[in-house]
């Protein structure tokens, strides 16, 4: 058998894993890999900053359910990936990050562009590798994809010294994986599910609390069946948005800090929380000791370490959400639900405390509503801040994998490259990044990526001239001392778009919103719309950090 180089083996291994696209940026230590990519079948999308490569791979993964792949050179290229890797780690996104490394003989000597990226990413990867022998390349690639995509998914980093990519080996792609320290749960514990079913049958005020795990395990239809079988209201977290149709009568929207009042009231009054693929994040629970004080808690999660980590749990169920939900439905479907009175109460709360805002001037919420009206099937990505919360509150998702956001890390600058990744993965979808003026500037250089690679995404900037979410906290908790949050007129976004060869539009009046959106989407080119919105609009309702989630502020 003919020998091939480590770089060839790497590309061939990626092809074996079915990789169709890589987001990356070249440099010295990955030159041999890029030379192989030159005529490989895998598409390479050249970004303009490695952080964007990681976010794009993340957006691609969330939109498609496949593992995203990014690549960067050693040293600064690798460290530029770090925020993107941490973002994917917090949101359990399957990602394989490949970094070049200095030749083995130079490692440890502070060589040019050397960084200990496996050391740096230890706490933000599910696992990582430093490849020391070219013979290990196929096995490590195989393991990396397996680890990244199974169990609770997450990023895996592979650091490859340059001389490993030029060494040669007889290539054989392994069939089997032998990882005795890694055994993602296979089935679900039926005994635990029986106990869960008993609790459900006894409950009069259940609430299903669904997180991103439902989307990851493709369990949306199982969730719908369970909810309709037991007639329980469903609250979906930021990461779970899309797991259950926001338009369904049993939907009560998002819980927590900027959740709906009716979701928070329902949780607080509930006698049974059925948590699925959610992790009791502090933004959801508020003050943990007063979270759902009258409820028993069933917690279904594939990661045993999530169970009991934050909240006290009565019935832990370790396993895949999809399998657990379908079995659970089977166990309870013979009984008639007894939630009529409960649903009536929730309906009253919904009528009494709807999400609302004053409709004067150009309101950011209105922009989101227009996007929803015109493009209900779009894939929405978001930046971080008020824009993200308004997107979550006012865009009604009906399908999973259509709301892509940095939930755990809250990374500004995530949404635009994630939109590029999502559009590359699902080319037929309309992809819209609901952005803030501050966040967009953190990765606006990716306009070049979108234009050069012909990836027509729309960036809808809710331009308030502020780092709005921080300004909101300053208004509420720091006597309106707007320290370092005024970013008014930092840049002309229309001209910026045009400078990159994209389309730039500006909207100042509510009546022009829809026309601009249509123009942007119909152009089939990368496009920025600069929506000049009411500057000091706040995200409401709001539960102050550390308060119980029924201690809710209404903000003007």
């Amino acid at each position, binding site marked *: 058998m003919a020998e091939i180089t480590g770089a060839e083996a790497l590309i061939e291994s990626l092809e074996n894993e079915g990789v169709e696209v890589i987001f990356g940026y070249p440099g010295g230590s990955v030159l041999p890999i890029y030379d192989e990519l030159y005529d490989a079948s895998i598409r390479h999308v050249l970004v303009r900053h490695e952080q964007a490569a990681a976010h794009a791979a993340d957006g691609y993964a969330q939109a498609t359910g496949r593992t995203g792949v990014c690549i960067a050179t050693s040293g600064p290229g690798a460290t530029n990936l770090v925020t993107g890797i941490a973002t994917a780690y917090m949101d359990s996104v399957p990602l394989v990050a490949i970094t070049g490394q200095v030749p083995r003989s130079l490692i440890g000597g502070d060589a040019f562009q050397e960084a200990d990226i496996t050391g740096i990413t*230890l*706490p933000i990867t*599910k*696992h990582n590798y430093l490849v020391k022998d070219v013979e290990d390349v196929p096995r490590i690639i195989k393991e990396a994809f397996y*680890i990244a995509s199974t169990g609770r998914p997450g990023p895996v980093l592979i650091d490859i010294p340059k001389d490993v990519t030029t060494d040669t080996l007889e290539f054989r792609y392994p069939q089997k994986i032998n990882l*005795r*320290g890694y*055994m993602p749960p296979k089935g679900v514990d039926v005994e635990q599910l029986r106990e869960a079913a008993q609790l459900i049958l006894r409950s009069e005020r259940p609430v299903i609390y669904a997180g991103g795990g439902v989307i990851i395990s493709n369990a949306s239809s199982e969730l719908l069946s369970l909810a309709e079988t037991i007639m329980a209201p469903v609250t979906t977290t930021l990461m779970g948005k899309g797991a259950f149709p926001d338009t369904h009568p049993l939907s009560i929207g998002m819980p927590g800090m900027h959740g709906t009042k009716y979701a928070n009231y329902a949780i607080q009054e509930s006698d049974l929380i059925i948590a699925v693929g959610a992790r009791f994040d502090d933004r959801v629970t508020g003050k943990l000791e007063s979270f759902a004080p009258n409820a028993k808690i069933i917690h279904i999660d594939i990661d045993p*370490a999530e169970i009991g*980590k934050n909240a006290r749990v009565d019935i832990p169920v370790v396993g895949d959400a999809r399998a657990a939900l379908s079995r659970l439905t089977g166990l309870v479907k013979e009984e008639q639900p007894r939630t009529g009175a409960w649903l009536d109460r929730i309906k009253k709360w919904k009528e009494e405390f709807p999400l609302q805002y004053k409709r004067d001037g150009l309101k950011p919420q209105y922009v989101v509503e227009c996007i929803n009206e015109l493009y209900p099937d779009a894939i929405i990505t978001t930046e971080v801040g008020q824009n993200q919360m308004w997107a979550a509150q006012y865009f009604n998702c009906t399908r999973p994998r259509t709301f892509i956001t940095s939930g755990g890390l809250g990374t500004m600058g995530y949404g635009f490259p994630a939109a590029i990744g999502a559009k590359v993965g699902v080319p037929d979808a309309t992809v819209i990044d609901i952005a803030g003026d501050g966040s967009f500037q953190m990765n606006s250089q990716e306009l070049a990526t979108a234009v050069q690679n012909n990836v027509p995404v729309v960036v809808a900037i809710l331009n308030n001239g502020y780092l709005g979410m921080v300004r909101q906290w300053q208004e509420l908790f720091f006597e309106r001392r707007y320290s370092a949050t005024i970013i008014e007129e930092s840049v002309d976004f229309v001209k910026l778009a045009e400078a990159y060869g994209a389309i730039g539009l500006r909207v100042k009046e509510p009546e022009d919103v829809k026309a601009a959106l249509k123009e942007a989407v119909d152009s089939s080119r990368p496009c920025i719309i600069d929506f000049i919105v009411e500057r000091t609009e706040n995200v409401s309702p709001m539960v102050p950090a550390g308060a119980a989630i029924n201690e809710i502020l209404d903000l003007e």
Partner: protein
Amino acid sequence: MKRHTLAVLVENKPGVLARISGLFSRRGFNIESLAVGVTEKVDISRITIVVSGDDAVLEQVKKQLNKLIDVIHIAELAPNSSVSRELALIKVGVDATTRSMVMQIVDVFRARIIDVSTDSLIVEVTGSKGKIASIQRLLSQFGIKEMVRTGKVALHRRSQTAADTMPEELQRPIEE
């Protein structure tokens, strides 16, 4: 707070200890002692960790350790069903008059003297944390010049082993 002794069987690979100690520090777990070494199997190292914390902390420690790919198995060693030892080397300053007093103490503790010079002795003592603390206290009156001690190591009593609780599948390769 309760102390718990864990035997953690890990892949004998570079970097594993860093993964484990990093996990403890970033999650705020308290390590009281840690000892690592190879085992009867060349490809497995055994890390004995003493952690302090309530049952919920212990559970998180075990679960988080289990998430590390290089951790193969974790067994808890309860005090009544296991034996454990620590070892200390203690260099004590002596002169003609105190030398025999030190040697008496060493005898009582069934410790050993492993190095002798005109003005110092090195005492080797194995035993429990408490035993080592006692001899250290007694020897301190003569002036301890230097001291080093290992972490605790422990084994289950009788024929029980840490691997007993390991699921059988762990021994077999996983197929995709």
